[in-house]
Every structure is written in C-alpha cells, then in structure tokens.
C-alpha cells in the first residue's frame, strides 16, 4: 500500500489528471520531474523506508521508457548509461526483497506515481518504436532533452530519497539517545544496526545520484544549457570496458555466484582502484589536480585497494578445484584488463607520466575511473549481501574450519557468547577436507571485509569530491559524519526554468 498523502498541491505545477489520462509524453515527463522535486520537500524520516522499497520499480519504469525513446544518445562510453543505473536499482531491490533494511512494507506514493507516469509515457511512445521514421510528435523533440529530462527525474528522486534517509538516520539517533536516557525498554528503541543500515542506504543512493549526474554533466550543450555542460568526451575503450564491467558484475552477483566469481570481482575492483591511483597521481603531476587533493586521495585509494585485495583473498579460500567463473564475467573482466594494460602499463610496469599523458586525456580518464570507484560502492554492498544471504556457500573444511575458529575468537572477545565452545568442523570433514556449508563466523568475516571495502571506498570517494566541483556536495554526504543532520535546507535543486532540460539544476 502506498504511503504518503495523495496529490499534494502546494506547487500547483503538475498537469491536472482527469479520469481519462490525456497527458502527453512531455507532460508526463514534466509531471514526473515535479513529483521528484516534491520528494525533497516531503523528505521526512517516515517516508524513507517506503522510498527505498519503491526504488527498483521506479528505475525499472525509467529504463523501459528510456529504451523506447527515439535514438537514445550514445554515451561517451558507447554503453547505455541507463543499464548501469538499472543494475544498481535491481541490486537495491534484491537487497530489500532478501529482508535487509528496510524490509517489506508500504511503498512510496510519489515514487510509485512517477513510475506509473513513465510507464504511461512508454505506452504512448512504444507504438512508434525507437527506430521508426515516424516518431510521435511529442518525441520529435531533441532526444537529448527527453533522455536528459528522464535522467534528471531519477537524479532528483535519488537525491530526495537520500535526504529522507538522512532525516531518518537523525531521527533514529535522536530516539536511541532519548530511549537510553529515559531507560525505555529495549524493544521500543531503535537499534544501532538499523541506523547503520540506513546510513549504508544513503551511500548507495549517493552513488546512484552521482552516476545519473555524470550522464547529465556529460551531455552535449543544448540551447537550454549552453554553459552548464562540457563537450562529451570521445569514446574510450577504458570507459566502455568499465561501464560494461559494472553491469556484468551486478548480473553475475545476482545469479547465485560461485566464490570464484567473488574473487574475480574483488580482484578487478582492486586493479581498477590501483589504476585510478596511478592516473590521478599522473594528472596531479601534470597540474590537472591540486596537490592537496592528491595527498588526501592517495592513501584513501590505497586503503580501498587493499580492502578489495583482502576480500579477494578471503573469498579465494572458499573456492575448490571444481570452481568455475561465469564466462560472461570473465569476458567483461578481460576487456577491463586489456583496456587498463593498453592505457596504463608498459613493458616494465605502470606507464610513466609522460606516456600516460600521451595516450590519454588525463582529466577525462581520471573522471571516468573515479566514477567507476563510485559505482564500486554498490558492488561492495552486493558482495556483502552475497556473504550474508547466499545459502549455497560452501568451503573446504580445513581452511574454513581454521578461519571460522579465528573469526569466532575475535567475536567472543567482542562479547559474542553464542560461539563459545562451538566446534565448526568434524574430524571426518577435516580428514577428507570435505566441502562444508559456510559456518556463521566465517560468513561474518566476509561481511566485515565487505564493510571495510565500503568504508575505505566511501572515504576515497569523499576525498575525490573536489576533482569534480559538481560532485562536492554529494561526495561530502558520503562521509559518515555527514550522514547525521542531513536536511532539506542544504539542497539546491531548483525548479526547471525550461522544459528543454539537459544539464543538472542544483
């Protein structure tokens, strides 16, 4: 059941809807954008869980409309930018369905209404087909405008959801402190776990917002936004490979992955992070980046790379000789490796600064890689969900018995009593080195490692905020301390001054 009052009319800017909906595609898109903006003004703590639950449906509807709009613009990467966002939306949806916070419950009326509008718009466009010579009159507008407007709706809605989540976190923290002070029964107080889960969700929506923003900022100029956007960068192999990789990683992880898949995902992310570090440093040496920024960023990227490498190593312990990697993942990873090798290495190791500057437009390449680091945060969340939920995880008894014992001892030291006196493997299992279901402490170890990746990568993203002035606000929100006290006042998303949208307005 949708949650939120019906049709708020404070702005009176949406097209009135009669019993028979006669709105045009343009009106449906404009109404959706207006609804998205209303989420900002209605971003109260109570709305946040419902908004998260509605997110996958909204992104799915947007992706379906995007696919039928005439001549979708080629992104600089050559890969449909909506695919990336759809992968993230689906990952969030799966997490909720699996029972992670906020779990099942009411959906959000605003976001559901936007999704319905977009579905209605798709029905209007579809008969004409994206390749049809005779497009619907409403879709004859510059296709960049239509795609831009649709992307802008997602961009603002993601921001609105993150704001509502921020308010939720503040509210939960307040209730926790008050509950402790008044000695309320534990059952009536929020848990620290719930607060962390809501903070995690903020980071995921921040990532989504930045990916959508990257598309908007990359649009070529239109009459409506002559000064707001840069010229689209020429397509690069690296950009294409990274975008395809993110989508494939999400797909593989969604489909009962083998531990070998997790190893590959973590190794690729470590390599991407290393490459980001090398190119960012080269850009700094060439004067494209402030040295102060690189001093903060370099250690953060190093920590993220190390966390991904540790994750790969630990998942490697779960593999067996029979393990198989998803061939599609291998294909996408091969392309990332080849693109990185061609762009950033030479016969003896990493390419020199001079070589890098000759081969690449460093500022653009750095931006591409940092965007990939942003996207990797959501991949890390999916890795964590996999560690928590994948019921089919098994591991060879010898190594995992030792690992489970080690993790159990750490947990016992931290006050966990359930693991005291428990043995995780039998003698028979050890003797035969049998594959056994993953014991809980070993699973917990994998979750902790994913948490390390999330924390360190968020720090790297926050440190990189100044690489792209448009992302400063979003990245700053990722810092844990910024999750507190998030409010509507800090937002600068304005009303569209022209329906011919193109760039972000914030």
């Amino acid at each position: 059941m949708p949650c939120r009052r019906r049709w708020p009319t404070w702005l009176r800017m949406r097209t009135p809807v009669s019993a028979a909906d006669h709105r045009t595609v343009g009106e449906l898109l404009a109404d959706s954008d207006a609804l998205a903006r209303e989420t900002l003004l209605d971003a109260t703590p109570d709305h946040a869980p419902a908004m998260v639950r509605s997110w996958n449906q909204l992104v799915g509807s947007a992706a379906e409309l995007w696919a039928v709009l005439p001549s979708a613009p080629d992104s600089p990467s050559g890969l449909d930018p909506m695919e990336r966002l759809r992968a993230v939306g689906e990952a969030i949806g799966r997490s909720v369905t699996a029972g992670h916070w906020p779990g099942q419950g009411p959906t959000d009326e605003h976001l559901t209404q936007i999704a319905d509008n977009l579905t209605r718009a798709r029905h209007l466009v579809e008969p004409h087909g994206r390749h049809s010579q005779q497009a619907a009159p409403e879709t004859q507008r510059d296709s960049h405008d239509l795609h831009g407007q649709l992307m802008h709706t997602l961009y603002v809605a993601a921001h609105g959801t993150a704001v509502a989540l921020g308010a939720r976190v503040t509210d939960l923290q307040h209730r926790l402190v008050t509950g402790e002070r008044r000695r309320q029964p534990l059952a009536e107080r929020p848990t620290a776990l719930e607060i962390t889960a809501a903070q995690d969700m903020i980071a995921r929506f921040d990532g989504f917002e930045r990916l959508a923003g990257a598309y908007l900022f990359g649009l070529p100029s239109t009459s409506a936004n002559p000064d707001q956007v840069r010229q689209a960068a020429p397509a690069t192999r690296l950009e294409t490979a990274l975008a395809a990789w993110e989508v494939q990683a999400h797909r593989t992880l969604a489909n009962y992955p083998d531990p070998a898949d997790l190893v590959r995902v973590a190794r690729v992310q470590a390599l991407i992070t290393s490459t980001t570090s090398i190119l960012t440093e080269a850009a700094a040496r060439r004067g494209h980046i402030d040295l102060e920024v690189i001093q903060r960023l370099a250690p953060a990227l190093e920590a993220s790379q190390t966390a991904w490498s540790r994750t790969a190593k630990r998942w490697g312990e779960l593999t067996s000789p029979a393990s198989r990697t998803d061939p599609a993942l291998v294909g996408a990873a091969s392309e990332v490796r080849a693109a990185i090798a061609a762009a950033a290495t030479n016969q003896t190791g990493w390419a020199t600064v001079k070589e890098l500057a000759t081969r690449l437009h460093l500022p653009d390449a750095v931006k591409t890689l940092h965007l990939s680091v942003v996207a990797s945060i959501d991949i890390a969340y999916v890795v964590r969900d996999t560690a928590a939920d994948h019921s089919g995880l098994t591991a060879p008894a010898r190594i995992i018995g030792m690992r489970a014992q080690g993790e159990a001892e750490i947990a016992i030291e931290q006050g966990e009593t359930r693991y005291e006196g428990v043995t995780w493997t039998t003698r028979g299992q050890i003797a035969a080195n049998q594959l056994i279901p993953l014991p809980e402490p070993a699973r917990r170890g994998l979750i902790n490692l994913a948490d390390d990746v999330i924390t360190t990568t968020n720090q790297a993203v926050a440190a990189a905020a100044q690489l792209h002035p448009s992302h400063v606000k979003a990245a700053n929100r990722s810092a844990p301390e910024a999750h507190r006290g998030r409010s509507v006042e800090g937002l600068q998303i304005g009303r569209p001054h022209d329906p011919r949208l193109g760039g972000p307005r914030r």
Partner: protein
Amino acid sequence: MSRQHMDADTAETLAGVVRLLRRAAELVWAAVDADGAGSPRQVLGWGIDLAADLARNLLPDAILVDGPMPVGNEPAGLLRSAEQLLRRVTTPGAGTRLHALQAQVADLVKDANTGVGG
C-alpha cells in the same frame, strides 16, 4: 571443440593447463601481496586468472581438475609449461575459445618475462 565432444587425452591436458595456470597465478598474487598496494603485477596476475578461467570453462563438469600441484616456483616457467601443453591440443576444428586461450597464454609468457611479471 565443445565440452561434450572432448576426448580423454585433451581433457587431461587441459586439466593440467588449469593446474599450471592456477599455480602460476597463486605465485604472482603472493608477489603482489608482498609488493603492497598498487603493484603493477596485478595486471599479470589478473591475466593468468582469466586464462585459467578460460581453460576451466573449456572442460566438461565431469572432468576433475584436482591433481598434483605443479612443480616450480617461477610463474614464467609454469606459464611456459602451460603454453607447451596447449600446443599439444591439436584437435581438428578446435574452437575459437581454444585458439584464444593459446594466444593469451603466449602473451602471458612474454609478460612474465618482462619487469611486470618477473
């Protein structure tokens, strides 16, 4: 060459290739860990992992990849052995995936002999 129509000799040879590549990858990743963050050897380690995945995916499920750990502590030597074994697979009409694997391992041998992998 499909997984279903693979003869026993070819399957055993490819299983040997998988073991060699996995051992070589293990050694390179150990070196990457020793190097610390940002090691350029990641590119080689990754390449070997991918080649091992390709080889593994050529084999039918029924073929066991288990076997003795290959002798040797030099990634370049293990890769050369894998390359030589792959040359033995001369099944008529061998698929493009096998040819891709042979080319990839040949490239890895070169990489392992340079500063990146050595």
